[in-house]
């Protein structure tokens, strides 16, 4: 996933993880609050309405007492109290003005419920039996004022509400009842209605009064007066005497709250309906506010978060970019973040890390460069010291290279003898003759090299520390101040020392001493190598001499054995045959002479130096005599010219002649042999020829007959070797050495 997408995901994550839970909680809280508020409001409103209605009902009841009082007042008129209908009628007529409020008239009944009189007059009603009227019966029962339900006791049978009050006699007996009537309907101008009209809570609400049968006595929708609402549960409940408020639906299906209460003292019920929407309208405003706040509460944090998060993620992105650059290899990348919080701290740490990384990378590079340089130096030394197997050359080359490495000009290389006591100067640079003479042979313990040689590691030695005053003086005169002594080590043993001298007094540092120690090791190994090579050469030479000695011993033994046998039987032979005896005696003489010559040759093998003391011609004569005695064949020797030869050339020619003559004696089965040495200025030729069996050159391996050794010896002195042989035709070996003398003597 590309890194920029990753940073967006971080932002999204922060927003999601901080915002969404908050939003959810906000929403939940808001909704719960709203719901609770609505419920509480509803409950309050309903409660309030219930009380209001009950109070209104009580108020209504209180208002109604006005009318009962009026009637009760009438009922106390003396004439009315008389049981005489005519009197009662006259009194009633007299009180006409006070009865105006009863817009359907007033009626007097006798104790049996018969209509006695009415005002305004209703002659048709006089004498009617109204005892079956419910209100009459109730009044009889209760003895108090009574309100009726809607009935048709009005003039011409109109529907009226009757308020009846008993008329009491002097003795308290019931004399009759006086009943006032109110008309129902909008046309009624009675104050009774007036009281009821005030009941409406507001324009949109409804209020109505139902009688004990559920018929509407009054309704705020005036057309509905007289309607039968007994089927409505609300009406049923209120007529059951309950005070309550209900949330329900009205006739048109609108949500309403219906509060109802029975009117005390009457069989009626008061119902006030208000639309739910109206009730809740105030709270609706509030819930709208709440919703708006909720919306704000969701939107604003989103904006804040989005902005704020960018402020956070921007430094993080900067950090990421810087880290990417470092990962790509641009160490030392730094960033600036000024947020003053953890991110700034993180950025600071990052900067520190990055700088350190750069520093340590640079340090590493430097070290690698140093190491590479050292390896190159060691490599060069290795090449130099492995060039040669000569100790002088090795030490001279090593000294030169070490001086080069250290940037110095003066120094000396010393070889330590086997006993480890004496240092011999083998090579030097920049030393004066006096110094050279002085240090040519030094006991190691007396000199400046003692510490290096004994401790086996390079050592700085200041001139002041020198125990040897004379040497100190000599070196000081040349302005030299410091000596660095490097032991040459192999297998933990010091084989020599290389001393480097400097005009600066500051000691050589640890790393350079380490390098010098490594070089010292390499040179030590090379010197050891040279030793081993010398030893090997000497051992090889010794082995060969040993072989030759053995061969000679064997040869001499054979000769002497033969001689002794002849000597043993010579007397008897001589007696039998003098001629034969003489022959055998001559043979005996030859054998013994041959044996002597062999012995002289043997001596040469035991004392190799002797080979170069006698002239080559003399040596060849000895060889010839020896072979003649051994092989019983004449060996002719001719020597022409005489000149001193270089020792290695003399030895080589001698050995080749010896090997060839041995072959003649052992294998050739020849009848004669010839050795010739011809010395000319600039050229020496040696030739050995026999007339024996010969051999097939191509079928003979070079190891056979010592041919390889002969060839090596010839090559070692730069001479040419020619071997000619044919089966049955004899063999000839010729060695030619050219004298290429050069002006410098090599």
């Amino acid at each position, binding site marked *: 996933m590309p890194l920029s997408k990753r940073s967006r995901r971080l932002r999204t994550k922060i927003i999601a993880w901080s915002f969404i839970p908050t939003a959810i909680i906000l929403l939940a809280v808001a909704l719960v609050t709203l719901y609770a508020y609505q419920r509480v409001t509803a409950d309050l409103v309903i409660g309030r309405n219930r009380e209001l209605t009950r109070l209104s009902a009580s108020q209504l009841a209180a208002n109604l007492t006005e009318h009962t009082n009026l009637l009760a007042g009438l009922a106390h008129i003396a004439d009315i109290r008389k049981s005489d209908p005519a009197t009662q009628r006259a009194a009633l007529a007299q009180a006409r003005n006070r009865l105006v409020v009863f817009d359907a008239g007033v009626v007097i009944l006798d104790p049996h419920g018969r209509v006695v009189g009415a005002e305004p007059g209703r002659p048709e009603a006089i004498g009617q039996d109204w005892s079956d009227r419910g209100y009459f019966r109730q009044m009889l029962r209760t003895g108090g004022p009574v309100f009726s339900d809607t009935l048709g006791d009005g003039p011409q049978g109109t529907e009226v509400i009757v308020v009846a009050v008993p008329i009491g006699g002097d003795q308290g007996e019931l004399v009759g009842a006086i009943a006032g009537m109110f008309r129902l309907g909008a046309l009624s101008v009675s104050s009774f209605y007036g009281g009821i009209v005030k009941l409406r809570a507001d324009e949109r609400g409804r209020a109505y009064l139902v009688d004990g049968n559920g018929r509407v006595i009054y309704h705020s929708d005036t057309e509905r007066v007289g309607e039968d609402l007994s089927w409505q549960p609300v009406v049923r409940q209120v007529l059951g005497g309950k005070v309550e408020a209900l949330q329900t639906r009205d006739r048109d299906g609108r949500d309403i709250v219906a509060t109802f209460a029975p009117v005390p003292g009457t069989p009626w019920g008061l119902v006030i309906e208000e639309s739910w929407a109206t009730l809740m309208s105030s709270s609706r405003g509030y819930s709208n506010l709440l919703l708006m706040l909720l919306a704000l509460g969701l939107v604003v944090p989103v904006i804040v978060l989005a902005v704020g998060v960018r402020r956070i993620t921007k430094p993080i992105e900067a950090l990421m970019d810087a880290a990417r650059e470092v990962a790509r290899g641009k160490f030392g990348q730094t960033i600036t973040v000024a947020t003053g919080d953890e991110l700034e701290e993180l950025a600071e740490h990052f900067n520190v890390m990055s700088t350190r990384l750069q520093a340590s990378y640079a340090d590493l590079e430097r070290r690698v460069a140093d190491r590479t340089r050292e390896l190159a130096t060691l490599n060069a030394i290795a090449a130099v010291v492995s060039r040669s197997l000569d100790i002088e050359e090795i030490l001279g080359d090593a000294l030169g290279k070490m001086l080069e490495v250290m940037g110095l000009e003066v120094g000396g290389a010393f070889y330590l003898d086997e006993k480890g006591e004496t240092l011999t100067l083998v090579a030097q640079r920049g030393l004066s003759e006096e110094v050279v003479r002085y240090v040519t042979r030094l006991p190691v313990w007396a000199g400046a090299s003692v510490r290096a040689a004994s401790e086996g590691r390079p050592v700085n030695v200041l001139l002041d520390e020198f125990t040897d005053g004379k040497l100190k003086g000599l070196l000081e005169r040349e302005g030299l101040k410091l000596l660095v002594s490097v032991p040459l080590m192999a297998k933990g043993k010091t084989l020599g020392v290389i001393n480097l001298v400097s005009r600066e007094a500051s000691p050589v540092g640890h790393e350079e001493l380490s390098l010098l120690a490594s070089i010292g090791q390499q040179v030590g190994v090379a010197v050891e190598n040279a030793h081993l090579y010398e030893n090997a050469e000497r051992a090889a030479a010794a082995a060969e001499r040993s072989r030759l000695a053995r061969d000679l011993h064997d040869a001499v033994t054979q000769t002497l054995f033969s001689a002794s046998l002849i000597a043993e039987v010579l007397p*008897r032979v001589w007696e039998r045959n003098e001629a034969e005896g003489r022959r055998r005696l001559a043979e005996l003489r030859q054998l013994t002479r041959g044996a002597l010559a062999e012995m002289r040759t043997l001596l040469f093998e035991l004392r190799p130096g002797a080979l170069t003391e006698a002239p080559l011609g003399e040596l060849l004569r000895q060889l010839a005599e020896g072979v003649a005695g051994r092989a019983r064949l004449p060996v002719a020797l001719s020597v022409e010219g005489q000149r001193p030869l270089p020792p290695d050339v003399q030895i080589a020619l001698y050995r080749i002649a010896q090997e060839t003559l041995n072959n003649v004696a052992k294998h050739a089965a020849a009848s004669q042999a010839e050795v010739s040495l011809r010395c000319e200025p600039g050229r020496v030729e040696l030739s050995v020829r026999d007339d024996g069996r010969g051999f097939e050159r191509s079928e003979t391996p070079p190891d056979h007959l010592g041919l390889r050794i002969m060839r090596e010896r010839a090559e070692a002195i730069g001479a040419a070797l020619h071997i000619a042989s044919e089966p049955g035709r004899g063999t000839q070996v010729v060695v030619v050495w050219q004298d290429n003398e050069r002006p410098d003597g090599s």
Partner: protein
Amino acid sequence: MRVLVADDQVEVRSALRLLLEQEAGLTVVGEAAEAGDLLAQARGLMPDLVLLDWELPGRVATAETRPGECPLLIALLSCSPRPRVVVLSGRPEAQRAALAAGADAFVGKGDPPERLLTTLHLFGVGK
């Protein structure tokens, strides 16, 4: 007694022949200078005794050589009739090897000549 002389040095063969010819009852029937020639002569001449130089050159074709075995000696001893084999050598240290390999006697070339004669008498020479 018929004797076969084997040595690569001509002077040794000549001296031995001279010595042997002075003894009565001994005849030198042949001389050999190398192993192959010796075997051929031994098979052909059927000598009674072989004087063998331990350092005689030449290889004998043999199937397998175990250490301490001398194939030439084995081949000689397997001739019929089986000849006596007296080994001569300039190296005294060869005595043990020669006797272990099956030789009937050993005489060193550095020993005095009468030793050789005494050894030969042991085998019935001069009877």
